[in-house]
C-alpha cells in the first residue's frame, strides 16, 4: 500500500495526515468535551448535542450577517464575538431544557436518551423552518483563509489551526474548571455522592443545571468553530453524534483526560487509514476497532476502579 510513494513523499504524507488527523482531533475534542461533561459527570445521554452545536453554528451565521451589514469595519473580528454569543445562547437553552426535561429523568438514563432524541427532531425541524433546509454559507474574514506553506507539499490551513487552538483552550479551560475550581469540586462531589453532597450544603440541583448548561454552551462554541470547516445545515449535527459518543465512551466516561486521549487515537487512526484506504472503509474500520476494543474493555481506556 506504500508503493508509488517515494520515502520523502511518505514523510510529508505522514506529516500532512498527522495534521489532518489533528484537525479531526480538534473536531472530536470540541464535540466530546461538552458531551463528556454531561454524560460523564451526570450520566445523561444528550442526543440533541449535535443540534446544540448547530445552534452555535447558526448563531455564528447570523452574527456574521449582522456584522457585514451593520459593522463591516469590525467584520474581521466578528468571530470572537460570535463564539461568546454561541456559548451564551446554547448555555441558556441548555439550562432551560434541563429545567423542563432532564431533571425529571436523572434516575432514568435510557429515557433521557429518548427524550433528547425527540428534542433533536424538534430542533432540526425548527432550523429547517427558520433557516430553510439548505445549508447556509458562513463568510469568513479574509485573514482566516489560506494556509502557511511549510514545504511545497506540507501546508497548514489557518482556520484549521484556529479550530485547533479553540479546541485546546476549551479542553484546558474545562480541565481547570473541573479539577482546579471550587465549583468543579462541587460537581465531582455531586457525581460521587449526591445525598452526601447535599448534606454538606451543595445545591445539587443548581450544579446539575449549570453542568448541563456548560456542556451545551461548549457545544455552541464547537458549532461556531465548525462553520469554518464544516457545513451548517439543519441535520449537519447528527453526522457527528455517533462518533462523538464513541469517543466519550471509549475514553472512559468519567475521565476528561481519557476523552482527549481517545479523541486523539481515533482521529489519528482514521485519518491515517483514510490515506491508504477509501474514505468509507477507513470509517468502517475505525468504528469496528473502537467497538471491538469496547467489547474487550467496556470500562473504556481511563476508567477508575471504584469500590462497589
Amino acid at each position, binding site marked *: 500500500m506504500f508503493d508509488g510513494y517515494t520515502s520523502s513523499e511518505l514523510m510529508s504524507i505522514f506529516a500532512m495526515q498527522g495534521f489532518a488527523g489533528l484537525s479531526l482531533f480538534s473536531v472530536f475534542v470540541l464535540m466530546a468535551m461538552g458531551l463528556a461533561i454531561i454524560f460523564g459527570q451526570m450520566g445523561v445521554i444528550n442526543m440533541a448535542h449535535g443540534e446544540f452545536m448547530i445552534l452555535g453554528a447558526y448563531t455564528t451565521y447570523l452574527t456574521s450577517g449582522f456584522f457585514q451589514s451593520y459593522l463591516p469595519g469590525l467584520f474581521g473580528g466578528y468571530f470572537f464575538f460570535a463564539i461568546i454569543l454561541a456559548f451564551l445562547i446554547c448555555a441558556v437553552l441548555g439550562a432551560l431544557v434541563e429545567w423542563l426535561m432532564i431533571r425529571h429523568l436523572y434516575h*432514568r438514563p435510557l429515557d*433521557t*436518551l429518548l427524550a433528547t432524541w*425527540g428534542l433533536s427532531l424538534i430542533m432540526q425541524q425548527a432550523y*429547517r423552518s427558520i433557516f430553510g433546509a439548505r445549508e447556509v454559507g458562513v463568510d469568513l474574514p479574509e485573514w482566516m483563509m489560506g494556509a502557511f506553506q511549510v514545504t511545497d507539499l506540507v501546508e497548514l490551513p489557518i482556520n484549521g489551526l484556529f479550530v485547533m487552538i479553540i479546541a485546546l483552550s476549551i479542553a484546558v479551560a474545562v480541565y481547570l474548571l473541573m479539577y482546579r475550581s471550587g465549583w468543579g469540586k462541587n460537581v465531582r462531589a455531586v457525581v460521587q455522592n449526591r445525598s452526601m453532597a447535599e448534606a454538606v450544603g451543595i445545591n445539587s440541583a443548581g450544579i446539575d443545571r449549570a453542568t448541563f448548561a456548560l456542556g451545551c454552551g461548549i457545544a455552541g462554541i464547537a458549532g461556531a468553530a465548525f462553520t469554518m470547516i464544516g457545513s451548517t445545515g439543519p441535520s449537519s449535527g447528527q453526522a457527528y453524534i455517533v462518533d462523538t459518543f464513541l469517543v466519550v*465512551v471509549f475514553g472512559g466516561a468519567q475521565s476528561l483526560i481519557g476523552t482527549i486521549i481517545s479523541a486523539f487515537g481515533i482521529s489519528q487512526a482514521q485519518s491515517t487509514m483514510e490515506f491508504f484506504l477509501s474514505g468509507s472503509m477507513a470509517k468502517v474500520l475505525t468504528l*469496528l476497532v473502537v*467497538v471491538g476494543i469496547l467489547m474487550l474493555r467496556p470500562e473504556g481506556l481511563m476508567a477508575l476502579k471504584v469500590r462497589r
Partner: protein
Amino acid sequence: MKSSSPLKWFGSREGLYYLALAFLLVVILPLALDPFRLNMVGKYLTYAFVAIGLVMCWGKAGILSLGQGVFFGLGGYCMAMFLKLEASTPEATAIQSTPGIPDFMDWNQLTELPWFWEPFHSFSFTLIAVIGVPVLLAFVIGFAMFTRRVGGVYFAIITQAIAAILTILIIGQQGYTGGVNGITDLQTLKGWDIRTDEARTTLYFVCVGMLFLCLFAARLVQNRKLGRILVAMNAQEMRVRFSGYDVAAFKIFVFCLAAAFAGIGGAMFTLIVGFMSPSFIGIVASIEMVIFCALGGRLSILGAVYGALLVNAAKSGFSESFPELWPFAMGALFIGVVLAFPNGLAGLYRSYVMPLEDRLFKRSKPEPKTASAPAATKPSAEKADDYDPMITTYSPEKS
C-alpha cells in the same frame, strides 16, 4: 402457560384482548381499506415485530438496543437476496454483460455471483437465514457485552455504532449489496408474482399470521418463570445473580429473541414493500422503532403492535396533509411518552379504560382457584391484560 382449556383462555380478559386485535387486523381493516391502504398497514405491521422484540428486550429486561434496525435489515436483506436471484434469470437479464447476476452487480463490473450470495438460491436456506443471521449477530454482540456486564447506556451507544457501521458498509459495497438504492425490483416468490393486489393482500394476512405467532411466543416467554426472571433482573440484577442465575445467559437469550422477531419483520417487509434498502438499518430508523414500543407501552406486547400501527399511520397522515409538522409531532411524542406516560398506551388503558370495563363486566377480584399445578399458574383476571408484570395468585392447599 398452556391453559388447561384454551377456550377458557379466550374467555379471559387477556384472551379477549387478543381476539380484539385479531378481529381488527383480520376482519375490520381488510374490509375497511382498499388493497393499497391495506398494503400500507401490512408495512406498519412489519415494524410491530421489532416493537414486540423491544418490549421483551427493553421493557422487560431493561436492555435498550438502538440497533434493532440492523436485525430488521439483515432479515430483510436475506429475503431480498433470494427474491433478487429469482428475478435475475439469464433471460430477464439478457442485456447485461454478465447475464444471470443481479443488475447492480453487472453495473459494478462483477462478472460472477459472490460466494455469500450462492446459498440464497435455496428458499429453505433463506428462511433459515432470515432468523439465523440476525440471531447469530445478536448472539455475538450479546455474548461479548453481557458476559462483561456492559449494559444500559453503553450498550445502547454501541448498538447504535453497529447500526452506523453496517449502513456505511452496505452503501460502500454496492457491488455486493446494491448500495444506497438497496435491492430493488423484486418480482416473484417461487414464481408467484408478489406485486399483484391479490398477492399483496395474501402477504398481508401471512404477515398478520406471523405476527400472532411472535405474539404468542413472546407471551409464552413472558408468562413463564423465564419472563419473571427477566423483569426481576431489570429491577434487582444483583439479587437474581445471587439467587443462582447466570444473568448474562438470560440477557443474551432475550436479545437474540428480539433479533429473531426483528429478522422476521424485515423479511415480511421485503415481501410486502418489494425491496430492501440501507435506510431501514440506520440509526434513525432504529430509534424510531424504539418509539413504536415506547408509545404502545414498553411492558405490553399488545401495546407494541398498536404503537407501531399508530405511529406509522400518523406519520403517513401527517406527511400527506402537513408534512413540515411531522417532525415536531414525532419529537413531542418521544418527549411526551417519556415524561408524561412512560407506560405508553397500555399504561393509560390500564389506568383509565380497564376500571370502566370492570364496572361494565362486573369483574370482581380473582376468584380463588384450586391449587392443582396448572390452575395455580393460570393467569388471574388481575394480570390478564398482559401489561402487568406477573402477579400470579397462589392459594393454599386446603380445599
